[in-house]
């Protein structure tokens, strides 16, 4: 309780500051008088139409429930009296993005949407969005405000244009941006190998995985390092900085190369990571590894990158902490012995793990200009934050209308550490009182359902996924995926995580050039020195101008 009060007062100070800039704004929705209640139930049912992202492989909804009408939408209706209607729905990922783009370009918007940064900017520029400054100040719950505080203003800046707040940002755990090495430890054990610490060791392990038949089926059909699928990313970039599953980011990191990121050079000037010599060096190694058959031959061509992981054909892949949510549940269904473990590896020449860090906010909830109740989405998110731990997550929380992830940025490492301490018996659940770690209480309550003794051994045989696969997904992700993040590693941030003016028109062309060249170099379709041509073309075709703009931006 004391903590809550502390947060409230901390937030009030910024709240009033923001009020100052938004004083003259009379948002049509905020006309009620008196103090605003972040969880206040509407007296009369209001309707909120939105576009929804649906995972087509998700079969979790019970019979009779729909993406529009399910436990979450009913919860919103019961608690806030908001009737959520789905205007249109599209499959997760590119399909949804395209649908949003279409809605933007045809100016045919539902009341609210979840969008990404470039879309948010386009919509602000097009004047399609409702100003949320007032609604946020009056209705955001202390928890929501404290999450935003913790990003040191980065999240607020991402949604503020000319002093007005045009969206509610997601606040994601920063471990979403750290791509770790996931390895089949049972394969390592079988072949008498250790988790590879250097690039050289990585090559040896991958070679052993390819040649020594680790799955024991007598056929030469295993992949060393799995790669990204068609349309995927070789590495995360400043615009899409998190959750790049199956990318090759840590290998670049081992060469101190951060392609796709904006960095500072020795003299303090901004440079673009993709055109630096370190990137060429990393590409040269990747090219060699590909030619030696250590990386998936069908890199960038496969329809689904998770397929070899699920089928037990791949031994290594790179991804963030949450793999317990997917693809690992399917992988252990096919092979209960698939002992996937996560490490912050490989290391660079000095023995350090280098990770590029993601932006704290990558998705945003926006409200159409002219919608009568802009505060409705804030109330819905307040409710989600407050009650998420109570939900039965056998139906994924993605079905919560207009959900964006919101938490402290260190939530997953903090929770992992807490769970370890509880398992070790050194702490009890009462020792963790900050309600901002909203899922932790439930995690502590559930952990022993799925984790068997010994509690300090994370190998798959000491787990009981069948007891509750939903709980297992989360706990395994935390204890295996996030635990490794407690050790020291080098955090590299991009100078900016959104587009400058020239990028709006030129970036797609430069990005295409980059994707095409790098993939060709790695897969041997173009010589390594194409990289130099790429660098000069990149500069000529707008890159130089963009560097100037970034310089202006970071000044």
């Amino acid at each position, binding site marked *: 309780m004391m903590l809550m009060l502390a947060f409230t007062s901390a937030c009030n100070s910024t709240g009033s500051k923001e009020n100052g800039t938004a004083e003259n704004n009379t948002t049509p929705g905020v006309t009620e008088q008196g103090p605003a209640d972040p969880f206040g139930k509407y007296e009369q049912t209001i309707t909120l139409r939105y576009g929804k992202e649906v995972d087509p492989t998700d079969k979790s909804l019970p019979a009779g429930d729909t993406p529009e009408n399910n436990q979450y939408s009913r919860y919103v209706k019961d608690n806030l009296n908001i009737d959520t209607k789905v205007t249109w729905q599209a499959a997760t990922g590119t399909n949804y993005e395209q649908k949003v*783009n279409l809605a*933007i*370009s045809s100016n045919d918007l539902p009341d609210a949407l979840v969008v990404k940064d470039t879309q948010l900017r386009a919509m602000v520029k097009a004047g399609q969005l409702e100003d949320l400054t007032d609604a946020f100040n009056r209705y955001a719950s202390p928890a929501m405000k404290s999450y935003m505080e913790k990003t040191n203003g980065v999240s607020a800046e991402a949604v503020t244009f000319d002093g007005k707040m045009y969206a509610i940002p997601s606040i994601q755990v920063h471990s979403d941006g750290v791509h770790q090495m996931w390895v089949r430890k049972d394969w390592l054990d079988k072949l008498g190998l250790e988790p590879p610490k250097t690039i050289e060791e990585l090559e040896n392990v991958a070679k052993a995985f390819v040649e020594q038949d680790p799955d024991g089926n007598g056929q030469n*059909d295993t992949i060393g390092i799995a790669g990204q699928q*068609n349309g995927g990313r070789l590495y995360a970039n400043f615009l899409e900085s998190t959750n790049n599953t199956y990318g090759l980011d840590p290998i670049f990191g081992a060469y101190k190369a951060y392609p796709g990121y904006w960095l500072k050079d020795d003299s303090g000037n901004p440079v673009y990571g993709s055109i630096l010599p370190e990137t060429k060096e990393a590409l040269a190694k990747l090219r060699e590894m590909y030619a030696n058959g250590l990386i998936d031959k069908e890199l960038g061509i496969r329809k689904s990158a998770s397929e070899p992981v699920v089928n037990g054909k791949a031994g290594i892949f790179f991804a963030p902490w949450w793999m317990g949510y997917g693809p690992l549940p399917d992988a252990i269904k096919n092979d209960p012995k698939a002992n996937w473990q996560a490490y912050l590896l490989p290391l660079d020449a000095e023995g350090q793990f280098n990770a590029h860090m993601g932006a704290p906010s990558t998705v945003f909830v926006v409200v159409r200009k002219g919608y009568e109740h802009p505060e409705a989405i804030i109330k819905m998110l307040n409710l989600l934050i407050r009650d998420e731990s109570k939900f039965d997550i056998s139906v994924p929380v993605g079905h919560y209308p207009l959900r964006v992830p919101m938490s402290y940025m260190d939530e997953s490492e903090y929770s992992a550490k807490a769970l370890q301490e509880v398992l070790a018996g050194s702490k009890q659940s009462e020792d963790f009182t900050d309600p901002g770690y909203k899922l932790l209480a439930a995690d502590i309550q559930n952990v022993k359902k799925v984790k068997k003794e010994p509690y300090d051994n994370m190998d798959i045989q000491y787990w009981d996924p069948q007891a509750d696969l939903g709980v297992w997904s989360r706990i395994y992700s935390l204890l295996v995926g996030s635990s490794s993040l407690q050790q020291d590693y080098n955090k590299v941030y991009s100078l900016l995580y959104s587009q400058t003016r020239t990028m709006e028109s030129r970036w797609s062309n430069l990005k295409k050039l980059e994707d095409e060249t790098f993939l060709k170099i790695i897969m041997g379709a173009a010589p390594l020195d194409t990289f130099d041509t790429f660098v000069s073309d990149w500069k000529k075709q707008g890159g130089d101008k963009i560097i100037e703009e970034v310089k202006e931006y970071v000044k």
Partner: protein
Amino acid sequence: MRNRTFIKHYYIMLLPGFVWLLLISIIPMFGIAIAFQDFNPGQGIWKSPWIGLENFEYMFSLNDTKTIFFNTVNIAVMKIGGNLIVPLIFAIMLNELRLMVIKRWVQTIVYLPHFLSWVILSGILLDVFSYTGPVNGLLHMLGIEPVLFFARADLFPFIVVGSDVWKEFGFNTIIYLAALTGISPSLYEAASIDGATRLRRIWHVTLPGLRTTIVLLAVLSLGNVLNAGFDQIFNMYNPLLYSTGDIIDTWVYREGLLNMQYGLATAVGLLKSVVSFVLIIISYLLASKFANYRIF
């Protein structure tokens, strides 16, 4: 003289087509204004600022433009060639079959792929030509190193054209078969009485009988030259194949819809429309000259 009600029927039958044309093809034409604007969806076409030919200038400064025009024409011309010749040969071969039962069966089976969408077919093709797929299995048996087909920009146009011809030849055969029924059997009888062999009969009776159909189809497909097949390529390509596989439509889709470069994408689309328009006019002139085909 025809009576009036008879003509009225014709007009009524014309109406749905006319409405469709107006809604789907004529009205959206105003959208080309976007090509000359810094288009802002919030302001719409009426209020977005005009920027003259800036989008066109940028378009011509891009290396991509040349590549995508070349790829489009290259793939489309190969497709037109394949889709004319293969069904023709196949129709003639079917026509020579004397067992009607087999002929019907073959005909039914070969036109089935026409009804599958590219979304499904491309998935199948990606599997068939994958590194561990049956095609590479076959190559392996022949002692040839496996080929990563979808990483080879040099092979991609042939995969695209080959699969398109394979998908459509059965269906296109129907047109030729229909034309073949129009050839009088007495011509064949006369030819055999004169001692013509099968090949001679095909050369002197069948082919001349099909001539107008061939010319007509060839000329009409000219208007389609810049449609190299969005569905198909979009579902199969990846960045490795951009250099030979990226066509105008896929490029416009990426720029316009994914990257929200509305003006630029519209400018390229407009250029494509202009070229297509010229080609359609030429094709109709040729059609009326060589095949005596006129709409009005």
